[in-house]
């Protein structure tokens, strides 16, 4: 084969796309369609809680159109990082949605679920064999960190996805997967070389991002022996060299070296050429097989329970002395919390000041406040939800009523926009595992389960 065609429907399954884009894209005869289902970008909560950051209603809409199109065209439909984080609850929720759509629409197809949640005992055995190493300056992985984790996933490469296709699946729901892997898998399985197959994956992983105007929508990629071509089906969009260049830098630490489970995609010699006013040819990518196959692990642990409140001040006297006010406020809260039995070690309070440094915190170079109003989010993370609620309630009332020099607004210092004012946010998770593991082979950590839908 000297050409392989792939259609990606959106940035993330559930972010939406134009139905007309899918109709046009399908008329270009893709060999496979799909969409990335997730990311770590929305933060650690979703992996920890087992919930998705996308809504069931919008995911169902995006999935329904894709399943109808794939069944009609008799081509595979592949979803990467199902349910947002690719853990077992995320995968099962997505599978339930697929079954529900199939039942409603009278569709039937062979489906594969590829599991990526890792059991703690097997990971501890891997640590003890010395098969793990840290990323991003984290400490080496140990038994205690694994035992504390709420949920841990491995990020699969293309091999389990290709195997599920070999075994006859038409709809594939992958757990956590490297973003380009769901595209590299079918392209390489069809005989295309690794370099353009992986690069195609990089261009497809966020839908229409390598086009302008930038908005969640479809993107279509033609993979050929030594290059790829990228074009958005929607006639209102255009892929341009600048749009492709912009996207080539997306979410990677290096623009030229992209580490994947089995090797390295080197884009240092790439060329971007406009071949029409709305399509771009990319060539010059190379692939280097890694000396050892590695799988990235992502895990989160519970760091406490959070409650927040939102308020603002319009008082210039207070704004002029806000730093002093907030440090006095912190002392008052500590004293009052101690008086009802909560020591400082049981909670952390953070006051975010919008209009000052709410966006950049310690990185904010602008030290002068020019705003006529300031917004605050007061946040308390406690050892328990009760502690967080209690300290936050005290922090809220202290913020409203505390005295300060020159105070004229003696009925209250803050405008609270909501009743109830205090918002219980539940458990707070933090990323605790960001390590790589060398598995025995690319498949053993990712069991494939087939079913007839």
């Amino acid at each position, binding site marked *: 084969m000297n050409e392989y065609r792939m259609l990606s429907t959106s940035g993330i399954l559930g972010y939406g796309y134009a139905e007309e884009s899918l109709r046009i894209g399908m008329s270009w005869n893709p060999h496979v369609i799909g969409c990335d289902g997730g990311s770590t970008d929305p933060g650690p909560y979703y992996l920890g809680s087992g919930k998705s950051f996308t809504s069931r209603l919008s995911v169902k809409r995006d999935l329904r159109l894709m399943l109808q199109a794939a069944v009609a065209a008799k081509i595979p439909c592949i979803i990467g990082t199902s349910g947002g984080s690719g853990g077992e609850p995320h995968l099962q929720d997505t599978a339930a949605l697929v079954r529900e759509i199939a039942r409603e629409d009278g569709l039937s197809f062979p489906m594969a679920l590829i599991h990526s949640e890792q059991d703690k005992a097997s990971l501890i055995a891997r640590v003890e064999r010395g098969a793990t190493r840290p990323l*991003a300056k984290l400490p080496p992985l140990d038994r205690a960190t694994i035992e504390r984790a709420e949920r841990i996933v491995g990020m699969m490469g293309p091999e389990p996805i290709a195997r599920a296709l070999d075994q006859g699946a038409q709809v594939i729901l992958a757990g956590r997967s490297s973003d380009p892997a769901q595209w590299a898998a079918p392209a390489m399985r069809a005989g295309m070389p690794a370099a353009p197959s992986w690069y195609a994956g990089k261009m497809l992983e966020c839908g229409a991002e390598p086009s302008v105007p930038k908005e969640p929508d479809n993107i279509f990629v033609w993979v050929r022996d030594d290059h790829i071509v990228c074009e958005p089906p929607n006639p209102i969009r255009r892929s341009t060299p600048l749009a492709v260049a912009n996207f080539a830098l997306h979410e990677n630490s290096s623009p030229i070296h992209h580490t994947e489970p089995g090797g390295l995609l080197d884009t240092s010699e790439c060329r971007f050429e406009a071949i029409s006013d709305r399509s771009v040819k990319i060539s010059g990518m190379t692939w280097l097989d890694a000396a050892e196959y590695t799988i990235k692990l992502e895990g989160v642990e519970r760091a406490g329970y959070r409650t927040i409140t939102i308020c603002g001040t319009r008082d210039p006297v207070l704004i002029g002395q806000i730093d002093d006010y907030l440090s006095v406020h912190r002392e008052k809260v500590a004293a009052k919390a101690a008086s009802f039995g909560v020591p400082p070690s049981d909670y952390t309070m953070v006051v975010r000041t919008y209009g000052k440094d709410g966006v950049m915190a310690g990185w904010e170079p602008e030290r002068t406040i020019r705003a006529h109003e300031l917004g605050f989010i007061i946040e308390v993370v406690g050892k328990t939800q009760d502690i967080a609620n209690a300290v936050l309630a005290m922090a809220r009332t202290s913020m409203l009523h505390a005295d300060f020099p020159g105070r004229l607004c003696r009925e209250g210092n803050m405008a609270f926009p909501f009743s109830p004012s205090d918002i219980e946010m539940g458990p707070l998770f933090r990323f605790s595992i960001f390590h790589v593991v060398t598995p025995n082979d690319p498949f053993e950590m990712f069991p494939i389960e087939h079913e007839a839908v």
Partner: protein
Amino acid sequence: MARIRDIAQVCKSKNAGPFMVTIDVLFEDHDLYRQVKATGVLNAGLFARLYGVNEADVLFTPYDTAAAFKATLPRLVPAGDIGDTDVYGAQQHAPLLDVEVPVNLQPR
């Protein structure tokens, strides 16, 4: 002299994983990119100063193909951890906008 905000087409930040943030500056005009690159103003040391991190922790890469500069540095707080202000890392680019580069702008 010209400010980055007046000569670049893209200046953006985003997470590169939960522990790093990556900042990109792109130029549509490859000649202008080459001029900016030749001044040497954009380098790891600049990002270290703007963000108060060690220069050794800044991965700085000019990418000629894309007429772009990329700098990746450790986040102040891991994404979503206590005290993080920007879970996606999407609003950490502003200090770069006012950096001045000694290039001569031709009227376009």
